[in-house]
C-alpha cells in the first residue's frame, strides 16, 4: 500500500507468463466443452433408463442419483473442479480483462459438440442468439475486470 510509484512494477507482467495464462484459459474452455459433452451424454442415459416408464425429463431423485452414480455425469462435474483450479491459477498471471472474455469460447465448443455429437439442429436465430450471448459475456467480463 505505498505510493503510485510502485505501479509499474505491478503492471509489468512477464510476457511468457501472460501467454501461458491465455493458453491455460483456452484449455479451460475445452475442459468446459468436454464436461458438457459428458453431462449431456449421462443425462441422455438417465432419460433412456426412465423413458421405458414415462416421457419428459427424469425425476429429481434420478438427477441427484445421476450426478453421483452415472460415470459420465460424475466425470463431467469432476472436470468442472479441474476447470476451477486451472482458471484460478491462470487468473494469478494474466490480465482479467483478457482472460474473462476468453471463457465465452466455451459456447463455440458446446455448439459444435451439440451439432456433431448429438445431431442438434442449428438455425440462424439460434446461432445469432448464442453469438449475442458470447458478446454479452465478453462485455460483462471486460467490465468486471477493471
Amino acid at each position, binding site marked *: 500500500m505505498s505510493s503510485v510509484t510502485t505501479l509499474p512494477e505491478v503492471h509489468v507482467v512477464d510476457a511468457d507468463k501472460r501467454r501461458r495464462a491465455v493458453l491455460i484459459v483456452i484449455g479451460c474452455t475445452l475442459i468446459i466443452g468436454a464436461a*458438457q*459433452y459428458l*453431462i*449431456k451424454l*449421462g*443425462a*441422455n442415459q*438417465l*432419460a433412456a433408463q*426412465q423413458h421405458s416408464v414415462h*416421457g*419428459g*425429463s*427424469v*425425476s*429429481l431423485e*434420478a*438427477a*441427484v442419483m*445421476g*450426478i453421483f452414480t452415472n460415470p459420465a*455425469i460424475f466425470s463431467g*462435474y469432476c472436470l468442472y473442479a479441474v476447470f476451477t483450479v486451472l482458471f484460478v491459477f491462470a487468473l494469478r498471471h494474466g490480465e482479467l480483462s483478457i482472460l474473462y472474455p476468453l471463457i465465452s469460447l466455451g*459456447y463455440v465448443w*458446446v*455448439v459444435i*459438440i*451439440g*451439432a456433431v455429437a*448429438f445431431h*442438434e*439442429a*442449428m*438455425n*440462424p*436465430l*439460434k*446461432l*445469432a*442468439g*448464442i*453469438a*449475442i*450471448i*458470447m*458478446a*454479452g*459475456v*465478453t*462485455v*460483462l*467480463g*471486460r*467490465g*468486471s475486470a*477493471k
Partner: protein
Amino acid sequence: MTTPPSSIVLVLVGAVIGSFGAIFLKWGAHALSRSWTSIVYNWKLAVGVVTYLLSSVLFVKGMSNGELSVLFPMVSVGYICTLLWSHLFFHERVTKAKLAGVGLILVGIVFLGLGNATH
C-alpha cells in the same frame, strides 16, 4: 428434437439458484483462515456448495430432455444474477459496460429461445 419450455425453465431456475452459490462462497471466504476447522465449520461455504449441487441437479434434469446447444448458453442468466447480488450484498459498482453486457445476454437468450421455437 427441440427443447421443451419446461427444460428451459429448469435450467434458468438452476442458474438463478447457482448464482446464490457464488454469494455464499464469497461470504464464507471472508471468514476463512489457515486451519481446516475454519473450512469444515463454515456454514456459509456449506450452503454455497449445497446451492451449487441443487443448481446442478436442475441442470441435469433439464438436460435429460433438451438440447445442449440451447440449454448450456441459457446458464448465462447466472452472470446477470451474480451482478445483481454483488451490487445488493457487496455494493459493487454497476458500470455502463456491465449493463451493456447484461442487455446483450438477455437479447441473446430471447433470440436463442425464438430459434429453438422455430425449428
